[in-house]
Each structure stands twice: as structure tokens, then as C-alpha cells.
């Protein structure tokens, strides 16, 4: 066979197929990727530097901007790290509210992923549906927190506001609606033979290498390894709630999609349980004056399961009123660079964007 000429192809930063403002530099022969390199930094806002200039409360407004599609896990992880340093108890009610917020965040992020996965495959019907329906979840957030995208709701010590009146009923109604709609989406996307053909056997993350590569979350579960921070290191009240962690064998896009599809059902289940079990009482353990609040010196490592996998915060305090260093590790940090560069060679260029979406690569999380 004649060796075809290598072409360099830049996916991004301005490209409809990219999952954010980043760039993947591909060397392609014909339609096949030979090598890939991730270039990030287009969204670098120097969060970790800025947080060193903010005090402990101010920092949380920055934090939720780390990764745009899912601000809440960031808030929660930071709050948990600070609570660990500060030995601060969180009221039981706040824990339940946090669980609900987390699962709603998982759902809204799932809807976006759904759109991305479907859109990158060239099916533009379900994105319209799912992103449209995502607004109903955002409406819930708006009622609860006052913001659509950036909620700035979970902070050290609990949550910012109590549940508004009638909110739980509205949530349950929305859950019913979403559940019904998910069936409709799945008929279009998951039952579609073309989608199956596209997704099966593509972008395989090998099971034996997955953990070593730093793969986490649904991608890891898609290789058949049951790993979820919610059950490994239960936080908040996940240990009191009954839910399953779906896994799939295969490690390809199809397996990951199936894992996510099942996960969102579990989210609905968790929300229903949490609303039913919601205790009364305080929702916030007031910190002292936010301007003067100091946190004892030390280091804390907190992990949370976001929709794309484990999010870790390494928070260091020197005893002052500002964080000394906050280092964030999002799921995309490994997925977007090492894993992507490892699994892209040999794939068709048509699948690059498909794989990006399936890995959940979120560039702002890589460069912060």
C-alpha cells in the first residue's frame, strides 16, 4: 500500500467539533490519525493564583467557574476540603440538599453531554431536545440558588439558602417529565443502529491500563471497573441512599454512553430518595465573619464524583484568612491530555470529536 502523505490538522480552538476552547493537533494520513497532541491554555485564568488573593469565602465564587458545565461539584469539593481543615460540622439537612444539588448538576451536565455526543455524531435532533429540556433543570436551580449556570450555592458550612417553598414538588414533577423524555431520546439515539455502529469499538480505553492512565468516572466504569467516589469514600449522605453504580464492559464510546444513560436514571432515583428523607433543621453552620475567617493551618485532599469522574481539591492553609494554595484536579486533566493522546492514534478523524465528547474533555478544567 502506498504510504499516504501526513497532513497536520488542527481541531480547534475555533472548531465546531471541539468541546471547548482547546486544540488538538492531529497528524493524519488520509482519514486516520497518526498522532495527537493536546494544546491547552486558551482558557487559563490563573484561578489558583487568584484564589491566593481571595479570602476563604470569596474563593468559592471563583471556584465554580473552573469547569463551566458543572460548577456544583467544584463548590462541594472545595467546601468539603475547607470543612475538613476547619473541623466544621455540616447540618444534616444541608447534606441532603447538597446531594440533591449534586445529582441535579449531574443531570444537567448529562443533558449537555447527550447533546455533545449526539451532535458530534451528526444527529441534531436530540441535542435540541435535551438542551431544551435541560432548561427545566436549570429552572430548578434558578429557583433554588438564584442563578442558572453559576449557582454559588454550596459553601463551607452548608448551603446558602434553604429550599424555597414548593421546590421539592416542582423537582419531583420535573423528574417525572425528564424521565419520560429520556425514553424518547433513547429511542432516537441509543436504539439507532447507525449510532451503535459509530460508537462500538471506537475510542477504546483498555481495561488493564485504565487506572494507571488516571482514568476516572464513567470512562473507567465503561471499562468494567466499578469505581465511584460516592461509594468508595461516601461523602455527605450517599451512604444512606440506595443507588447502583452501573458498569459496562468494553471501554468504547458505546459502553461509556450506556454507563451514562444508566447513571442519570440513578440520579433521578437518588433525588427522589433524598427528597423523601429530607430532615428539617438548620441548613447552614454559620462561619464567623467572612472577612475575618481564618482556617487552621494544614492540608486537605477532598474528592467528589462529578459527572465526568473524580474531582479532587488539594487545599493548603497557612492559618491565615486566605487559602495558601488550592490545587484542583478535574477528571479532564488526565482524560484531555494523556488518555486522549494515547487513544486517538489509529482512529478515524471523523471520530475525534466523538471521542472528545465521550471522554468528557472540558478544557477549562485542564488549565484552570
Amino acid at each position, binding site marked *: 500500500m502506498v504510504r499516504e502523505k501526513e497532513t497536520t490538522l488542527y481541531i480547534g480552538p475555533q472548531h465546531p467539533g471541539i468541546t471547548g476552547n482547546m486544540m488538538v493537533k492531529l497528524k493524519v494520513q488520509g482519514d486516520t490519525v497518526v498522532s495527537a497532541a493536546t494544546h491547552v491554555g486558551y482558557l487559563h485564568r490563573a484561578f489558583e493564583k487568584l484564589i491566593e488573593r*481571595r*479570602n476563604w*469565602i*470569596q*474563593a468559592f*465564587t*471563583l471556584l465554580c467557574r473552573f469547569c463551566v458545565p458543572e460548577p456544583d461539584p467544584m463548590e462541594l469539593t472545595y467546601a468539603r476540603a475547607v470543612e475538613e481543615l476547619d473541623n466544621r460540622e455540616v447540618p444534616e439537612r444541608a447534606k441532603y440538599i447538597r446531594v440533591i444539588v449534586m445529582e441535579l448538576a449531574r443531570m444537567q451536565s448529562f443533558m449537555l453531554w447527550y447533546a455533545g455526543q449526539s451532535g458530534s455524531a451528526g444527529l441534531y*435532533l436530540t441535542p435540541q431536545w435535551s438542551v*431544551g429540556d435541560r432548561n427545566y433543570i436549570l*429552572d430548578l436551580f*434558578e*429557583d*433554588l*440558588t*438564584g*442563578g442558572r449556570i*453559576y449557582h*454559588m450555592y454550596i459553601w463551607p458550612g452548608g448551603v*446558602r*439558602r*434553604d429550599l*424555597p417553598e414548593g421546590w421539592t414538588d416542582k423537582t419531583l414533577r420535573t423528574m417525572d417529565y425528564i424521565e419520560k423524555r429520556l425514553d*424518547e431520546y433513547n*429511542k*432516537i439515539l441509543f*436504539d*439507532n*443502529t*447507525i449510532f451503535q455502529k459509530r460508537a462500538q469499538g471506537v475510542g477504546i480505553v483498555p481495561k488493564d491500563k485504565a487506572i494507571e492512565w488516571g482514568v476516572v468516572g464513567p470512562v473507567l466504569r465503561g471499562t468494567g471497573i466499578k469505581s465511584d467516589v460516592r461509594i468508595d469514600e461516601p461523602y455527605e449522605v450517599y451512604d444512606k441512599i440506595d443507588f447502583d453504580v452501573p458498569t459496562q464492559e468494553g471501554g468504547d464510546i458505546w459502553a461509556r454512553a450506556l454507563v451514562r444513560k444508566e447513571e442519570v436514571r440513578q440520579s433521578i432515583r437518588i433525588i427522589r430518595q433524598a427528597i423523601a428523607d429530607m430532615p428539617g433543621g438548620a441548613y*447552614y453552620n*454559620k*462561619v*464567623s*465573619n*467572612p*472577612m*475575618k*475567617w481564618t482556617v487552621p493551618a494544614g492540608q486537605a485532599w477532598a474528592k467528589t464524583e462529578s459527572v465526568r469522574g473524580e474531582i479532587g481539591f488539594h487545599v493548603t492553609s497557612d492559618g491565615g484568612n486566605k487559602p495558601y494554595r488550592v490545587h484542583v484536579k478535574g477528571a479532564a486533566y488526565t482524560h484531555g491530555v494523556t488518555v486522549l493522546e494515547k487513544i486517538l492514534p489509529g482512529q478515524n478523524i471523523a471520530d475525534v470529536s466523538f471521542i472528545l465528547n465521550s471522554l468528557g474533555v472540558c478544557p477549562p478544567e485542564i488549565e484552570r
Partner: protein
Amino acid sequence: MSFIDLKGMLQPLGAVKQLFKKPHTIQYPYETNKASDNYRGLHFNDLDQCIGCGNCSTICQNDAIDMISLDNIDGKKGDSGLRPRIDNGRCCWCALCVDVCPTGSLNLTKDYIFVTDNPNDFLLTPGLDNPDAKDRLSYTCDMNTSLSLYDRVPMRELDGKERVKSFAEVVLGYSEEEARAEADRCISCGLCTEACPENMHIPEYINAIARGNDDDALRIIYDNNPLPEMCGKVCTRVCEDVCALQVRGEAVAIRWLKRYATETAPTVEMIKEIVDPKIEEPNGFSVGIVGAGPAGLTAAYYLALKGYDVTIYEAQAHAGGMIMYGIPKYRFPLESIDKQIQYMESIGVKIKYNTKVGKDITFDEIYTNNDAVFVGIGLQNPWNIGIKNEDSPGVISAIEYLKIINSDETYDVGKKVAVIGGGNVAIDGARVSARFGADVTILYRRRVEDMPADWEEIEGAEHEGINIVPQAIPTRIIKDEKTGKVIGIEYLKAKMVAEDGGRPRPVAIEGSETIYECDTVIGAIGQQADFDWLPENYKEDLIIERGKIQVNDLRQTGVTKIFAGGDSVKYGNSDAISAIADGFNAVKGIDKLLLK
């Protein structure tokens, strides 16, 4: 590759169903989706409610909030006169500013649409630029959700039953932990500094306490108040009345925090070591001070620091003036005042006790021997109650009574005591009497909430079993015809009549005479200064109006060389902190006069 399978063929049916459904599109801008009741949109600030504390500006991590002065808003005590202006080119609508607003004036609204082609349009003065947004408030903050801590750390006190047994100090003071927690509440706005007659650096020393640097706190306090221990215990604390937190909750316990700071230095040596006062070289001028009250002592302290040769002439055997003789020891123990005086003397202030001007030394002598004179004589002569039989034995003024008690002498008040008046002195009189086992009743013309005394004092009195009869106008004192001793007091019940533009006035109800049987009547309706010692020629030059000396803002009297301060001066309130302010400002005046 299979042919299109059956399932794939039937799929469209599900989708085509949607063709005939009404789209769920919100046809904005033709139809609007209302923002939620909790939405964080543009700011709105209730300009009348806002006190310009600037807390929003401080919490804003984006440096988006400026405090600016507006045309129609002037500052007053408890209101800086500044109002927030939001730079919407910075704001991230995190609403932290709302959550820390101590008054709840700053809120977010449902308005979120602001579109313009001019980037300089993004400065918004909430409340001024969008006055109509008031109806669309959404993200608000009440006391529960607020980040401000509205509840004061309670002060530990002796139990009411316990404390009437002795003159032990009632207030126990903050522990370190409590003090840190209380200091933590302060939002450091500094509104208090303006209300304080002495303009103490309140936010700074509270902050120092909050950060655990008690020594710095003490140093900051001594910067313009040489009698903090006294202030920490008995100050009238007008500062707390304007505290930003007091608008909705309880003010920061500024007085107790000052007290805590002074308690960290229990001896004179420690004070000296911590404060480390810089005494300047003697500058050759000498100043004579009449009266060792708070005003005189303050003036003496700062004059001495500046290198003046200072001598205080005090008529009594003990320095301190009214705080020594007019304040009961359960509020302000003797050791404290001694410590303060010793500290003063240690930096070179000379005090001549038992030297009454006009008797032991003439005023002329002081006037001629010194380069400047400061007069801080205070108010000693009580006003008469002005009712029948006032001169009977068993009727005594509170001030005299307190003086007697504080001088370790005795005065038998008998079993039942009536106190007339509602000020601090009245309550002091009542509570002292209670400590001698008397059954005390306070008669006050107006309602309890109108009483000028501190609410803590009133509460303390109630805890100690003192009965307060409000809206009672004494009409006469009943004395025993044989012995001439007081056996009771008659008063009329009063009803409050609202007056135009003034506080309600008590009006006696005819025929409601009530008699309260008692052994002693203590009158506490005010005092006046005694100028008998002053030679006549000075009296005219000094300009004394209604018993008080007229001074300018540097406390200079009509006579260039004479400065005056304290209660006897018509400037500020008649309380200790005003006296200290007088002394402090007089130092500035003397400095200006002598050093230019």
C-alpha cells in the same frame, strides 16, 4: 451491513409526533419568562436604609463596588454618606454583598437585561439609577441567611441574687475565646469612630483582638484614650448605637472588647511595657489643670507625653472625679482607677490632692504660674427635685449618696427606698441601695423605654429585684410629723401624650394619687457645675451659659490661656468619653497655642 432494520425504520414515528406538538419555545422577547423569585439580577440599594458601611465593597472579590458620595445624601453619625456603586463590568452576581449587608438595604432584583453599545455605561449606582426596581426585588437577605453575625456573645455576669450581696464587680469580662468571637463579628466599617466623641480607632483595635494581637489592641487604644479601663467598664458607648450591626441585630460589644484589651495588662508595669509611651523631651512649658476627672487626666496624659510640665489640682483625696465618686464600685472597682492613676503618674503627671482651688490655692496663682490652664471641674451640685418636703432628713441626692458610699462611709437608707429619676445615676443609686438590703423602687416620669439609662443597667437593676414604676410623677414627700423623717412619697400616675414633632410628654392623671411608703428618697434628676471658686473677673470672660462654659472645637474658652473640658463644658454629651475627648482636643489646642 444490514439493510435498514425495522426498528430503524419505525424510529421516525416517535420524532414525527413532535411535529404536531406545540413547541416549548419561549418566544422571547415577544413573551417573557419571568426570572425566579430568587434570581440574582442587577442590584438595588435602598438609599435611605443604607448606612454606607462599605461592607459590600470589602467583600467584593472583584473590586466591583465603589463607595461614592451622592449629591443628595449627606453623612451623619451612623451614616458615612457614601453609597455603593457597582461596576457591572466586574460584578459576577455572586450576591456576597447582599449576604453581608448588615442593614439589608442592598438586594438583587429580577432585572438582568442590560444591553448597550457603550462600555462606559456599566457603572450602576443601585437605588439611584433604578429606583423603580424596588418592586422587583428577588435575592434578598434576612437575618437568618445573612453572613453577618447579629447575636452578641453574651457577657457573663454575676447572678442577680448573688450580686446584691456585695460590691463585687457585676460584669465578669470576656474570656479570650469570647473576646475573639465577639471581635470577629465586627465588620470594620468605622461608623462607630465618628460617633465616638473621642474618635477612637475602634475597628483597628477590634481587628487586632480578632487576630489575637491583644498588645497591639491596647497600643491602639492608648493612642487617644488614656483611661481605657474606665471606658471599658462604664462608657456610655454611643459608638454601639451607630454600629452597622445594630440596625438589624445587636451591636458589637465595643465596650466589652476594650475592657478585654485592658484586662490583658493587669499591672501598671505591663501597661507601660506594652504601650511603651514615647515621652518627648521637656519643652519648657507648664500647664495647670483644675480637677482630676477624666478630662483633666486625659489632658495631663497627652500633655505629659508631649513634654509639658503638668500639674493637676484635685480637691478630693483621690483622683478620678466623677468616675471615682459617682460610679458605684460594682461597676468600676477602686483598683482599676488606682492603676490608671499610677500609670499616669509613672509618665510624669503630677497630681496635688486635697487642693481645692479657691481655698487651698487661688486660681490666679495657677493662671499666672502656668503657660496654659485646663479646667475640668465636672458637675457636683445636684439639682433639686422641686417638690414639697424636699429638705427633710431621709431625702438625699444620688450623687451625694454615691460619694458617701464610695468614700467608704455609711449612710443608712432603711428598709425601703424610692429613687426618682431614670438616668444612670438614678439606677446606680438604686442598685447601691439594693446592696444594703433595701427594697428599692424607681419612679420615673416616662415609660421604661424612654429611660436615658443604659438598657444593661436597667436590666441589671431588674435582675437585682429593683422595682421600676414608670409614668409616675412625684408630687410630694410625706414625712412623719413627729420625727420629721421621710415615711413615703406621693406620686401621680401619668399618661403619655403624643406631641407634634417631639417625644411623648407625660401628663398627670388627675386623682390618681398613689403613696409609696419608704424610708429614704434618693433624687437623681441631674447636676450642675459649681463655679464658686472662680474669681469674678474670669467668670465674665469665660462666658458661662446655663451653667456651662462655652468653648470652641479646640476647647479654648473666652480666655486665650484657659481651656476647659468635661461635663462642665457645653460641648458634646455629659459623659466620661466626651470628657476624654475634651481633654484630648484641649491638648491639641494648647499645642497650637504654645508651640504654634
